[in-house]
């Protein structure tokens, strides 16, 4: 390398010559990769921050927008609907992800035990995940109609308890929330099921056999061996699903349009509305920056847990 730099001065010290040096040249790919990264990720982010500082409703031309400081941030923080939507989103995500975890886990546990038709079940359980959200939303809006199929199915179960099976899935504030949660659960349990199925498959059978020989019951094996070993899979499922569920949007738009009132307005829908319906770009940008900070700290928390958990379980390769 020293030789390279020494021979360089022979040429006119232009840009090409400078680039031709090996130590520079080697960096070119990195510069390009980093550049792409900046372009793809950082630029929109910087732009969003910039917009968040503007006083700008899109019903005025952009040319009339001006920087007004942190006013939008203050407005977002002072907007009760922002907090309600956020809280509601956490509630939806919490309920949906919990159900998806429990259901996906149970299904995976059942299917994991080899039995006939296992493949068929796996395929069936995976179908919902592959359906386009719009189709899910549309189908569910038909299923949820109060004289519709879901209530008809529930009728024989509910009537003996004196409950009228005319649940207003789309118009009762709480039922509508659960309509959205259940649609999400229907669609995404497939994913948790898949994660847990591969989690179960990756569990070394010797560990379970060892526990059996030591006299552990099925429950003890589950509680003390399988569950702790599946922790990474659980964390992955929680992180992935929570990330997605916090963005819950399609179902809310398609099933209830955020209603009745704003009882199914999620934070993503709130943002969409502020930006694309109300044209409050500056406000929306500020809200999305705040959300980005909030969500990424959550996600990094999840990833940190995962990495720690993985490290603890790591078996050194080729013991001995």
């Amino acid at each position: 390398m020293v030789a390279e730099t020494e021979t360089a001065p022979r040429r006119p010290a232009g840009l090409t010559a400078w680039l031709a040096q090996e130590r520079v040249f080697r960096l070119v790919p990195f510069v390009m990769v980093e550049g792409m990264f900046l372009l793809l990720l950082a630029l929109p982010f910087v732009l969003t921050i910039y917009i968040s500082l503007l006083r700008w409703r899109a019903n005025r031309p952009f040319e009339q927008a001006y920087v007004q400081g942190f006013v939008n941030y203050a407005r977002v923080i002072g907007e009760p609907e922002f907090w309600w939507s956020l809280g509601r989103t956490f509630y939806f995500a919490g309920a949906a992800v919990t159900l998806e975890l429990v259901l996906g886990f149970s299904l995976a546990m059942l299917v994991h035990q080899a039995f006939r038709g296992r493949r068929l079940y796996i395929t069936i359980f995976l179908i919902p995940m592959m359906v386009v959200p719009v189709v899910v939303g549309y189908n569910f809006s038909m299923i949820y109609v109060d004289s519709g199929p879901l209530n008809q199915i529930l009728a024989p179960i509910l009537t003996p308890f004196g409950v009228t099976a005319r649940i207003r899935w789309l118009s009762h504030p709480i039922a509508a929330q659960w309509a959205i949660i259940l649609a999400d659960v229907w669609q995404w349990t497939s994913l948790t099921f898949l994660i847990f199925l591969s989690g179960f498959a990756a569990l070394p059978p010797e560990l379970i056999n060892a526990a059996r020989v030591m006299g552990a019951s099925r429950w003890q094996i589950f509680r003390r061996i399988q569950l702790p070993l599946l922790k990474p899979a659980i964390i992955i499922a929680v992180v992935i699903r929570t990330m997605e569920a916090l963005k819950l949007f399609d179902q809310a738009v398609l099933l209830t349009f955020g209603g009745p009132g704003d009882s199914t307005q999620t934070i993503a829908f709130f943002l969409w509305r502020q930006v694309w319906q109300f044209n409050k770009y500056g406000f929306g940008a500020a809200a999305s920056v705040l959300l980005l900070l909030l969500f990424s700290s959550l996600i990094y928390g999840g990833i940190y847990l995962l990495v720690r958990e993985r490290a603890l379980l790591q078996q050194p390769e080729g013991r001995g």
Partner: protein
Amino acid sequence: MKQVRLLAPIALCLALACTPAQAQTLPGDTVEERAINGARAYVEDHQLQNPSLTILLISLFRNAMPAYAQQWEELTGIKVNFIEYGYTDIPSKIMAEAIAKTGQYDVFNHFPYVVPDAAGAGVLMPLDDYTERGRPDFSGIEPALRAQQRYNGKQYFFLLDGDHIILVLRKDILDLPGAKEEFQAQHGWEPGCPETMAQWEQLASFFHTKKGDTRWGKTFDQDLYGAMGYRAINFSYRHFPAYFGGLLFDQDMNPLVNTPHGVEAIRAFSSIVQYMPPDIQGWGTPQIYPFWASGQAFSVMSFPSIVGYGNKNPQTQIVGQQLSCIVPGVMRDGQLVRRSPQAAGTGYMVNRHGKHPELAYYFLQWFTGPQQGDVAIADPQGFWDPMRRSNLDNPAIVEKFGSQFIETTMANTKYAISLLMLEGNYEYFNVLDKNLAQVMQGNLTPEQAAARIERGWNSVTDDVGRDYQIESWRNGVASGAYLDTFQ
């Protein structure tokens, strides 16, 4: 006609050559002819090769529109392309175009109330220079419908759809033996089209019948709901002005909703919900139309196209049993005030960032013209509703909609009003919808809701700019878009 076609370019060239600064009327005897001539001349003058237009189209019209596109191409050699989106997605596309200025669309297809934000953002072409030369004819359109083509004194919009709300009753139920007599004995008036919202509620209450009950010699094998109407979020605001019957703001943009009168409107709007299907707050058109057609309701306040649906849909149970009514009103100062909001009338705008706004304009003028527009309204494939007085005598339109409906809806246009033509109107609408929903769910009293709506509206006004809003509002009221004037 042929002669005109041949002469037109020459005449135009001469006209342009002689008086370039002065806008001259285009040749042609009809609105449509002038539009065609204008388009041809434009193509020629600018020596356009393979001229084309792109319309950002509401996807509902994807089946009907291509025939007219083809016709336009045959007439002028201009090809028309479509980019289709659902109507909820289009405003954001328009606003994005305001920033991106791509020129990928020449024409926008949406509702009039998208105009304020879009015009404010500068994405709409003011069409007055073009109308001066093309001389479109709006004379057959009621003043309020016509007024919503303009915003702050400029024309941006060409309407082709009289989609103002109407009330429909079930004739077969009214005619059940003894029903009318019993109702009259109870309420003191002969049941039929109600004059007021209160009367409608009386009808709804009276005819609301449980499954299995036998009344007027008929055993009801399914529930009969007394009323139906749009009560979901994103729909309520289209109906509320009918219950309010007046201007929503005073001349200084102070909301008038937090008044005894406004509270009463909120109460009436919510009260009739008790006779509606329990899920009504979650329903949009895909649920309301089939339910109505299945015969499970006595009355519905809706877009006018529901009548056609009730008569023509393959699954319908109510063919020939629909009685169309002028929208009921409210009593104000001892006077009956009927107001029928133009709930979803569609129309066309020109993108200022398109390559050839003028050329795009000619398509608008042609397509919405008195003759050509009526062809579209009569089109069985289309969803364009009657809106011109001439529609009453147009056999094809009468054939499509039925004369009772046409007469009613045309009578109704006299009461048609525009929705709020103000920047930020979606946010005003949302404030209204959310609070109405809270009242219908019993979480707020009408008084509390009225106060909240007032507060919410004021903060939108402040955010957009009060002075600016006051000016737009006064312009709008002066244009007759709301029929009412300041007291």
